[in-house]
């Protein structure tokens, strides 16, 4: 830019424009390359933004030639659907469920992969290390449906767990329909599927730590626990913080497919979250406007959380999530 500094502003702009034109002619292929991706953005990401207006209308899907045309032909009703939403007891229920289930998941599951990675790092037999590491993250690649099938097989009324319980003289537990244990089942299965994978992420962070730090600590006579605390955990700290920020930032996006697959009408009280409720009301019961309104609420809060998480990330770790 320095070379333009002496020229007048007008000349400056003319030159910039002709430069841009020349650049675009030379690299027109680069712009063509972007078209398929932009097509996707417009169709599946930006067109639905127009669809958000359903939340403010008396929407009838058959009012127009197609569902989007119907939006334009439906009457505006202001915030009526939001009033209906915020006045319903279901809203508070699904909001609380979303927060509680995710809080449990973070509380119980967040530390486990960190501990696993530290323990796995202590194992010196390379073959065993590799075997254990490979085994624990197999479930990460399973779909939620398959995970559901496996746990239904294990913990259903006549599954191996209940057979064992009754053989030992205990009552059978209806894991999939008892409101007292269902959230526990969600946390447990999430752990089963995700812990191994997160362990691998932390393990990658540990292998980046300088080995000579341990040697120095040993010469100084530091105990194993002190080494772990001062060297391993300190070396992992930025990865730990990043993962925690991401977990909190994406609180509203996670767990949806899991719950959709695992839950049923008997556990709606403890397991119905914002997204499952949007799906059931908005599409299942065709209350499109209510579904859109709650979906919009979800998107706005998610947006604030994610942008907030990114700001914290930039401040603390000097890196951006994206």
């Amino acid at each position, binding site marked *: 830019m320095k070379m333009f500094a002496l020229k007048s502003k007008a000349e400056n702009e003319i030159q910039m424009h002709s430069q*841009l034109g020349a650049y*675009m002619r030379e*690299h027109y292929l*680069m712009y063509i*390359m*972007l078209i*398929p*991706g932009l097509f*996707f*953005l417009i*169709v*599946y*990401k930006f*067109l*639905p*933004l127009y*669809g958000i207006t*359903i939340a403010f209308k008396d929407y009838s899907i058959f009012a127009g030639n197609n*569902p989007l045309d119907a*939006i334009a032909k439906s009457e505006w009703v202001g915030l009526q659907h939001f009033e209906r939403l915020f006045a319903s007891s279901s809203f508070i229920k699904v909001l609380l469920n979303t927060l509680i289930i995710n809080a449990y998941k973070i509380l119980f599951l967040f530390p486990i992969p960190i501990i*696993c990675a530290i323990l*796995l790092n*202590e*194992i010196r037999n390379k073959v065993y*290390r590799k075997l254990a590491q490979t085994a*624990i*993250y197999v479930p990460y*690649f*399973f779909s*939620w*449906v*398959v995970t*559901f*099938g*496996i*746990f239904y*097989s*294990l913990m259903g009324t006549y*599954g*191996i767990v209940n*057979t064992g319980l009754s053989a030992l003289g205990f009552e059978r537990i209806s894991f999939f329909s008892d409101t007292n244990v269902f959230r526990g089942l969600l946390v447990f299965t999430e752990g089963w599927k995700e*812990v*191994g994978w997160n362990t*691998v*992420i932390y393990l990658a962070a540990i292998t980046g730590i300088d080995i000579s730090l341990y*040697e120095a600590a*040993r010469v100084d006579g530091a105990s*194993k626990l002190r080494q772990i605390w001062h060297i391993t955990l300190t070396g992992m700290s930025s990865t730990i913080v990043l993962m925690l920020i991401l977990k909190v930032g994406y609180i509203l996006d996670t767990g*949806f497919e899991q719950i*959709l697959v695992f839950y049923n009408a008997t556990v709606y009280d403890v397991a119905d979250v914002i*997204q499952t409720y*949007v*799906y059931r009301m908005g*599409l299942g019961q065709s209350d499109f406007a209510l*579904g859109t309104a709650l*979906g*919009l609420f979800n*998107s706005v809060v998610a*947006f604030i959380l994610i942008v907030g998480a990114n700001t914290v990330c930039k401040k603390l770790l000097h890196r951006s999530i*994206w």
Partner: protein
Amino acid sequence: MFMKKNETGIPLEASEKVMIVISYIIMSILALCAILPILHVLSKSFSSASAVTSGSVLFWPVDIQFETMKYVLRETTFLHALKNTLIVTFFGTIISMVVTITTAYPLSKPSFKGRKVFIMLYIISMVFFGGIVPAYMVVRTLGIMDTFAALILPFFIVHFNMFIVKNYFEGLPESIEESAKIDGASDIRILVSIVCPMSTPVLATVAMLYAVNYWNNYFHAVMYTNSTAMQTLQLFTYNTISNTQTIVERLVAGNYANVSIDGIIAAVVVLSLIPIVALYPLVQRYMVQGITIGSVKG
């Protein structure tokens, strides 16, 4: 490299020995927790109906039989659902890879005019989602309900994957591309014959991420398809687990005395796991590699 700690020649302290023993015990328990449930369903799918219903099957088949597998393969739409999922995964992954690469390449060039605007568009659409209902209305308007297109469109580009590829492209040395440019190669030529071959590890990782996404997705199938002809593997598996009544009727009608509902559920789970397990060495190689490339960052 983990043996290096001992190179100082200092003998292991008691605290270190205890730590190692604890590590072995806990990691063994966790590895068993991950593997035994899979072994259990595998055993159930090959055990007799009486053994399955009496709960005597643990981690090895009891009264081994193949009737359950035969039932699933012959009497259900499993193979058809498998075919659908294979089509979606195969074509979906190819399309997604092409679009991801062609988007990531221009955006990775610092000199690309308009780069910031396009990147901003992707970031905005990544952090703000229109919602399930509006997305459903768009798919209906496009007239692609109950088609493969509806199952591929949502994963056309996964932003996260695109940014991984873009970041990787940014790290490639500029000099090789420069010399090709002097030789008069077009941008597409450079991308196809220079940039892509230099990026095979990251491209393999991202292709794997897409394939697993397509293979495992259940939600889009529930939302955008409704006919049995379009049923995917995940939908079929879910329906089998939750609609046991129809199975009972068919078992009675088909005279499958040695087949139980729990056995069928186990068999369906096992069959839908085979491709993932078969490709596991490949999957794990590239996925772990993906972590070191920096998949934590989007």
